[in-house]
């Protein structure tokens, strides 16, 4: 018996699983750097985060939704790694468990699972932890190890102090930010490694350039405007904190980002702008997560009102 279906009869062979695998591969350089920079702490936090995310997704599909397991699409692992990337490397495991539960349970499965969530699940988890456990979430180790490590200020905090005229504050070295020899969440420190992963994903066409470039360009422009017309600070704003991680891996999350070139550019520009505004004028030194979550909320609107370039439609 022959199969019958409408055309096309061939397929690119791409799959959700493959897309997620590409993202995981893209995350690898930054992950490896975090292992180097934060040692056992990074390993423990990452493993715990991935394990809890997978566990919670399994439990929810199995016992709450009673649907077939969705672990095969690897999205829970991606969420786990991204959540780990967004927390300090000395975070207690029980806090990570809570973060994973919020990320998977509230951020993703409550909306109906993969493809239905409005907000980036990892960021939902991260922001929940930031508000619920502000002390643990803002104590940044500056050396390798898990417990009892030396902590210090992040470069963003330093920039903040510098711009507000606190005496004896030195701007961080650009080179340190680029390589990742600073304090911060475990995945965000090395701009270099993140860019490497981003280039990999661009080459494999997992993501398009629109969102990252729009975020970085607009963040640079507004940082230059808001931080006293100092190009050095503007560049450091791009390299420090969650900017690179957010621009390359968090804002480009398929599900919560808009769907055509134009709306992606607008989305990116708004994220860049909001991030800098929060960093400069907000209570938190870091604004990337909030900016992305705010723009996630606008994604349906952008999808509705911003259309792609049409073929054969002349602008009047």
């Amino acid at each position, binding site marked *: 018996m022959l199969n*019958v279906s*409408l055309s096309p009869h061939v397929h690119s062979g791409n799959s959700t699983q493959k897309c997620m695998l590409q993202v995981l591969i893209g995350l690898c350089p930054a992950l490896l750097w975090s292992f180097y920079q934060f040692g056992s702490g990074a390993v423990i936090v990452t493993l715990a985060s991935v394990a809890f995310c997978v566990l919670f997704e399994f439990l929810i599909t199995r016992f709450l939704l009673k649907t077939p397991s969705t672990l095969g699409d690897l999205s829970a692992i991606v969420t786990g790694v991204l959540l780990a990337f967004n927390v300090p490397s000395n975070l207690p495991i029980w806090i990570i468990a809570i973060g994973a539960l919020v990320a998977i349970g509230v951020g993703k499965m409550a909306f109906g699972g993969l493809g239905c969530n409005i907000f980036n699940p990892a960021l939902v988890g991260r922001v929940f932890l930031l508000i619920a456990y502000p002390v643990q979430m803002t104590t940044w180790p500056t050396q390798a190890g898990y417990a009892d490590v030396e902590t210090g200020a992040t470069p963003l905090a330093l920039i903040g102090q510098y711009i507000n005229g606190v005496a004896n504050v030195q701007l961080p070295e650009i080179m340190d930010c680029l390589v990742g020899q600073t304090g911060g969440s475990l995945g965000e420190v090395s701009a270099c490694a993140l860019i490497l992963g981003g280039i990999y994903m661009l080459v494999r066409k997992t993501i398009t350039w629109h969102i990252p470039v729009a975020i970085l360009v607009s963040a640079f422009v507004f940082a230059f405007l808001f931080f006293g017309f100092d190009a050095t600070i503007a560049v450091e704003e791009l390299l420090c904190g969650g900017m690179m991680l957010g621009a390359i891996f968090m804002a480009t999350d398929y599900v919560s980002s808009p769907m055509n070139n134009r709306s992606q550019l607008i989305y990116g520009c708004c994220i860049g702008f909001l991030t800098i505004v929060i960093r400069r004028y907000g209570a938190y030194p870091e604004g990337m997560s909030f900016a992305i979550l705010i723009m996630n909320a606008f994604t349906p609107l952008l999808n509705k009102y911003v259309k792609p370039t049409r073929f054969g439609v002349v602008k009047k």
Partner: protein
Amino acid sequence: MNVILIALIALGAIGLIGSLLLYLVAKQFYVYEDPRVGQVEELLPGANCGGCGFPGCHGMADACVKAKDATNSLGTLFCPVGGNDVMANVASTLGLEAGSAEPKLAVVRCNGNICARPKVAVFDGAKSCAVAAATFSGETGCAFGCVGLGDCVKSCQFDAIHMNVETGLPEVDETKCVACGACAKACPKFVIEIRKKSSMKSPTPKRVWVSCVNKDKGAVARKACASACIGCGKCQKVCKFEAITVENNVAFIDNEKCKACGMCVSECPTGAIHATEPVMIVVEKLKAKKAADAAKAKEEAAKKAAEAQAAPAAEAVPSDAKAEPTEVKAEPSAKKTAE
């Protein structure tokens, strides 16, 4: 004190401005609607199924009021969900005489189940009858019958039609079906028909229908499906009420004329004519009689062939044959009383 005063004034001012705005907007955008529309809508079931031909119950209510003003009657407007009771209420609200319509329901006109209609190809597209119908002639040799992917089930708002896993065909739940026609519209092959629930006035519905829409020539149809209507016309000949027409190689029973006597059902060589339970009881008897007649004829032939031999006839046959005529007679008399 000052603080309280400021708060009071501020809140009061906000309230005042807000109410003023609301008032102006309400005034500006006021649309007059006949109050009777609301009254009628309240009487309607509120299912918004579209069975009346209007987008929803409000549309139906509006149409009722307009019909009353224009023609002073409800005309053909009918709510299949609410039925006669609701329409009587609507009519009395609008000051009209209540009409009546016979209850109807959806009837699936395909009996090509998995055994009767073997698959010749596999559909591998979106799980929808509409998509499958647009793709090709069908998974079986019959290009007319049920596709079996359940667009009708999805379209039903009353949970009245379900796929039978064993036959691969949809089945209508008589107690739930309101004849809104959504399934008939959803079916890309036009297999589902809205028919009178019963051709005869009877406590249990008496309904006979041709459960096939295959327009292929007899041989082709038969090859594709063992229970297809082959357009042989036997039912047409046997029908005493001229209720059956055969067109495009497929028979159709007009349920206005049909008296549910069951003759056609017993005559159909492929079993394509279906009927409800009370009719089937009669049909079984008709068939038994036919079988008995055939057996008798055979026996008589055998008798003639072997005249010399005495006939030790089976006693069961005559007794059956006796029972039959009374039943058949009972039918027309029942009809007469019904009429």
